[in-house]
């Protein structure tokens, strides 16, 4: 199983499309930082948790699209033809699905790492800012549900028809352009640009970071929804296998 995981991982990581997407994500992250985030989200400092989360929210659609494109590849006609051979391996369809999900997770982590590395460079270069301890939890809460829910939805939709996964990519693209300012904003850029404005400024003139319960609940719901969708897909794969037997 581990061998197959490494094989699948290598197959994705060394494709020039992934490397190109990694570069595109890095360039886009720099563009967001230098043209938008440098002004600060909701009038807060560009290096505040609010701004940093807004930045992650702005870059997440691109990162998600990268992952979804790789996922789409798993459901292409060519891939389905190859599956006749791969299914001969001593492994269930569900295990295969989880391996691929693991590969996608690694890809997502790599893309996110590039996005964060660009941000760390930017903050140190322009603002000499290095203290990120308080950023980890909100950052994780922001990006993890994004990945899980899109992974679940992507697997489920692409399983029905590959084209549906492209529609999901289109939705991500649209979400990047029109981000709602509610706590249910999946990527969070609209939310983090609007919510701080509703809070009273604290010492220093800007609102201290506080996690809104509604937002935390929304993130939790997205996470659960993603796991459920993935579970549904795994179950569907198992049933398909049983029926085939």
């Amino acid at each position, binding site marked *: 199983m581990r061998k197959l995981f490494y094989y699948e991982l290598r197959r994705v990581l060394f494709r020039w*499309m992934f490397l190109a*997407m990694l570069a*595109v994500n890095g360039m886009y992250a720099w*563009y967001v930082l*230098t*043209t*938008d985030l*440098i*002004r*600060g989200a909701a*009038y*807060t*400092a*560009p290096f505040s948790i609010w701004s940093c989360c807004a930045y992650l929210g702005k870059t997440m659609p691109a990162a998600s699209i990268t992952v979804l*494109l790789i996922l*789409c*590849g798993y459901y292409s*006609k060519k891939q389905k033809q190859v599956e006749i051979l791969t299914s001969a391996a001593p492994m269930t369809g569900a295990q295969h699905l989880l391996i691929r999900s693991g590969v996608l997770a690694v890809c997502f982590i790599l893309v996110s790492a590039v996005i964060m590395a660009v941000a760390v460079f930017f903050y140190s270069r*322009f*603002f000499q800012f290095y203290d990120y301890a308080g950023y980890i939890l909100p950052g994780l809460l922001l990006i993890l549900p994004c990945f899980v829910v899109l992974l679940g939805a992507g697997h489920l939709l692409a399983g029905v028809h590959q084209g549906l996964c*492209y529609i999901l*990519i289109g939705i991500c*693209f649209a979400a990047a*352009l029109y981000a709602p300012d509610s706590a249910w904003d999946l990527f969070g850029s609209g939310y983090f640009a609007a919510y701080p*404005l509703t809070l*009273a*400024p604290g010492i*220093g*003139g*800007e609102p201290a970071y506080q996690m809104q319960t509604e937002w935390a609940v929304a993130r939790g719901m997205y996470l659960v929804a993603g796991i459920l969708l993935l579970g549904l897909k795994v179950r569907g794969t198992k049933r398909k296998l049983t029926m085939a037997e």
Partner: protein
Amino acid sequence: MSLISLYRVELRRMFLSRRIWVGALCGILTPLLGVIGNETLPSVSSRYIANPVLTATAVSAMLWAVLIILEASRLHRSGVYLLTDAASSPRALSAARMAAAMTVTAAVSILCAIVYLPYTAVKMEYLFDPVFYAANYLIFMLLTGWISVLFADTFYQITRRVELSVILYALLAYFNFSGYAQNDYFMRWLYPYVIVYSDGFQSWWFLRIGFYTRLMWLCIALASWMFSLLCVRKYEKNAAVSLIRGMRRVYLPVLTVCFAVLGAGLWKYQPFIDHETDSEVNNRMIDTPTTNASAIRYFLTAEPVTGRLSGRAEYDLKEPYTGEDKLYLNPGYRVSRMSYGGKEIAFRTVDDDNAGVRSTYFTIPEKKEGTLVIEFGGLPQLRKTHAPYIIAAFIDWESIQLGMRSAAPMLNYACRDGAEVEITIPGSLTPYLNDLPMTEYVECENGMKTWKCRTQEDAIYNFVAGAYETDTFTASDTNIHFVYGKAYEQAVRQYDINQAVKDVFAYCSRHYGALGLTQDQTMRLQQVTAMLMGGHAREGYLEWFETVLSPITLADADKGASATEVFIHEMIHQWWGGYGLVCSEEGSNLWSEEGITVYATYRLVKEKYGELYAKQYYVDNWRKTVEMQERNFYNRHPEYLEHLPEKYQTQLSMENESTNWYDRMPLMILKAEKLVGGEENMDKIMRKMYADRGDYAQIGFTYADFLDYCGLSESDLELTPKDYMTGEEDAGV
């Protein structure tokens, strides 16, 4: 098979494809997206034509791009290409497919225009113009659709991968929506840039530039598509080898280069916006000695079909300056001939576009009496810095607007008797020269009229022509000439606008004193096109925004007031501004006549619409904006400002100035009102300030003067968080 036969086959196939039908249906629905999200647009044409068409343009173009990529990949996905390539040339097949896709795109665009025509006509009522409406669909939606499918097919033919083509297309589309292309007429290939359409003084300027930019992008797209034809795979080789083999067809690389050069040339030598080099220069003065002219004459002809102006300026000189002299003209104009005393003289024009002018140098050979004749003409260009916000110079069938240097040359010549002006314009238009109506005219051929007049000024500062109507009435002992577009006649009668004007005059005269007009107590209130995005005021003359009379503004009780209040604001400037009490202070970015005018507008609105309304739309807005200014990180920590790019530093500085004038100062005056004992006392103070305006005409009424009149100190009016924090109800103010 010949290309035409292939085209027929492809077209038939597309019309039989379910995917294409679904795409066409979605394409027809796209204008609805623009209809839904257009609640804030001020003019009817913008709301019911510009927004639906532009939204449909962008969305349907993206839709067609995806469809063409799928169509292009169809043969490769099914593997049938092995057979089709044997039957016909893949390049010919590709060209036929593209021609068929363009036909389908055109059909859907035309269908869209037909489907939404009744809805648009009903909604726009008497302001609907079917030709203008159809032109929008044909220029924006149809041509952008073609550009889009060309780019999409290019990406597919080069990469031969669906997902990569989609990504590349998405990146190109994103470029259009990114900050780089924001407010840029030329970079926005997918979603054309239109500021606002005028309802009453229709202009084709946006359609002209729209057509030009579509043509430019069409050339670029065709160049890239021709290039991609070179990459069409031959003998199962990759893109690079196919490209080398493709070069053997010489006409393809030649056409690629031709279209690329044409596209680049159209971009570089565009005639609509000047090539300003320094946006900081706002005024250019001629430094040569002033020459006295015994007479100045201007003969101008506006050509509404081409949007060009041609003209001749004549200066009778007794003692001309014989050193190198220069004149300024709009950068879109070219001086074609100059003569002095009947003899041609040499001149040279320098491409030094700045502050909306270009210099032409000339030398009068001898110091003897004669007439200097300058012949010039061209398409008036907009200043690069202003073009994304204001359309200040254009010539159309229904409206003409020419500013200072876009009407006639600017020289350092003075004439005591003013100037004689003759201008030929479309017969349906009523002209105003230097803010005064022209009265004498001669009928010409082709429905044109030549208007003649003598102006007191020796230059043309402002020329406006439109289909105008004038109402004359008296308001608080002032003779009002209320000038508005003929298209708005019904609205003026229906909503009794004349009464609204009388109300403003009555209010201001009662609270601050009668308006001191020097010219027989006459005031002209003139409506100007929405494309100017504002107006100006001077003694006895006031321009007001077209959308004040828009049916949308007048019919919407909530939002309507705001545009009308712009009109009220401008009228109040007659009391607090250049021709009333001059409020200015050198070096101050806080004190100006705007603050006091905004406060006076608030008071009038409070009396007219009630306290709740005034609080919601004025006081709460001021507080919110000041709060945001105080919250801004860079205002709190100016030491970080240097990290901001210069563009954002300027933007922030402009935002701060605007907030200080229009929000902070009115809030401070409101605070002063509380401290001096209420509205009545404040009115007394303001009345006295207005009465004493003569004392400050030269030196300007400063903030310190204002504090003196109120008997307050600077610290009394300093705003604390309690004054501006929303939610801290009436703590300080």
